[in-house]
């Protein structure tokens, strides 16, 4: 039967049936829908149909779908292609930059040069101070 032609109570009850079948319907709504189902054989039959469908869809989860021949070989070849595996196996990737190893290298290089420069400056400063003192 076309849902638009159903009595109002049936239409409202049917909109709640998916939630009833999946066990999500609670409280007052559950009470009202159950009370309606006790009186309405059409809607009760609809629940049975929805339960059948829900059961079939749940069973689909466990059905076997055969992957195409060659897919596994393609995936393994892709994984072993030069560059991909190396990218997956860089433990420090993103350690400094978040996600870009080239930035990590840049940060480390700039840091090393800056700290060497500062150290050298302090050394020269300390020497000049000592010479002035003597």
């Amino acid at each position, binding site marked *: 039967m076309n849902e638009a032609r159903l009595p109002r109570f049936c239409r409202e009850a049917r909109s709640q049936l998916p939630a009833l079948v999946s066990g999500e319907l609670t409280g007052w709504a559950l009470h009202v829908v159950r009370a309606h189902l006790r009186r309405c054989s059409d809607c009760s039959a609809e629940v049975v149909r929805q339960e059948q469908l829900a059961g079939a869809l749940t069973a689909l989860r466990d059905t*076997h779908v055969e992957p195409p021949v060659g897919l596994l070989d393609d995936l393994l070849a892709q994984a072993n292609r030069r560059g991909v595996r190396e990218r997956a196996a860089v433990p420090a990737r993103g350690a400094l930059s978040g996600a870009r190893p080239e930035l990590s290298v840049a940060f480390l290089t700039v840091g090393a040069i800056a700290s060497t420069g500062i150290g050298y400056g302090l050394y020269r400063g300390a020497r000049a101070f000592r010479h002035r003192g003597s």
Partner: protein
Amino acid sequence: MDVDPALVRACQRGERGALDELIRATYADVYKLTRRMLADPDEAADATQEVFVRVMRSVVGFRGEAAFGTWLHRVTVNVCLTLLKKRTQARETGMVAGRTPFALPDDVFEIAGEDASPDDRAETADLVRRSEIALMRLNEEARAVVVLRDIEGLSTKEVADLLNVTENVVKVRLHRAHAKLRELVLGADGSTAAGGVA
């Protein structure tokens, strides 16, 4: 998608053979999900490849806050949703004439153990098979909510988050999808002897 955490750690350490083993352990499940979401075996195979490219790029950064299988599931769904969006855009811009549902009556999935089932199990298996075909006949939006909510068992909220819509939209799409599925699987009068959906 159950994956041994030790295998994931081995991949993160870059151990030889670990990545291959991870692919062998998970590719069939990934393909099954992409096949259901996309309803096209070629696109599903391409999507599976894309999923594993993303896995290879990101497995080192995987922190284990959720199970690896859950993360892989999410990556797979995201890849499928991206492809579905592209498909819709291509259709809207007229690059493709429109896609007909892929599944044909004889294009059914093998149901494990069907041959050995007694009569009642055979009937159930038949219902399941017809549901699979009917699922492929739904439009993309409807199929996505049914696959994620009813088959993969995600909550309404999780589905809404993934699809970037409200929970109410998910409920409405699910309600309409169920009505269509019931019509296709059980027939307009609800009889299971409707003889398939072809």
